[in-house]
């Protein structure tokens, strides 16, 4: 399922809304999730999961072409942990 498939499914669930509303709703949700993470805050969605940043310490890397050593700076990467309901529903799919 892609972002546009998701918009179609939501528009079908809410026939009273304009098609554009579902599209805008998906944009608003994903944009605010991304903004939250870029400011270093967490996202907690009960029944779905949580998103947070994980720290990656600086390390010595190597330029694969030249073999030269380079310092890779410390950084933060987004991390998702599935919530209980999602974990269970994925692991024991309803037949």
């Amino acid at each position, binding site marked *: *399922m*892609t*972002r546009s498939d*998701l918009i179609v*499914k*939501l528009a079908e*669930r*809410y026939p009273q*809304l304009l098609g554009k*509303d*579902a599209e*805008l*709703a*998906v944009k*608003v*949700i*994903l944009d*605010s*999730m*991304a903004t*939250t*993470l*870029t*400011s*270093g*805050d*967490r*996202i*907690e*969605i*009960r*029944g*779905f*999961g949580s*998103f947070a*940043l994980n*720290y990656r310490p600086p390390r010595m890397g190597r330029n694969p072409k030249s073999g030269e050593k380079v310092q890779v700076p410390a*950084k*933060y*990467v*987004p*991390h*998702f942990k*599935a919530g209980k*309901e*999602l*974990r269970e*529903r*994925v*692991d024991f*799919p*309803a037949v």
Partner: protein
Amino acid sequence: MTLTKAELADLLFEKVGLNKREAKDMVESFFEEIRLQLERGESVKLSGFGNFQLRDKPQRPGRNPKTGVEIPITARRVVTFHPSQKLKSMVETTYHGKSDN
């Protein structure tokens, strides 16, 4: 501040003009559609944000950390999230750690 479903519903009320009831339902449906898809064994790709994928993990030996007794960890299907290049670089360029820790 931590982002939750309540804040997302407020944003849909403010920015999309849905009423409070619709906004709350829309947030719930957004995550439910993703769960339904993953439950069916299909991945979800949200451009600009990231992909949710499924991994089938075989049974492996485990151990009760308290008693040291060996018990197998059963085979299972788990969800993994891979942030998009866009989200990763947004985080990398903007966030450099809280000043207070």
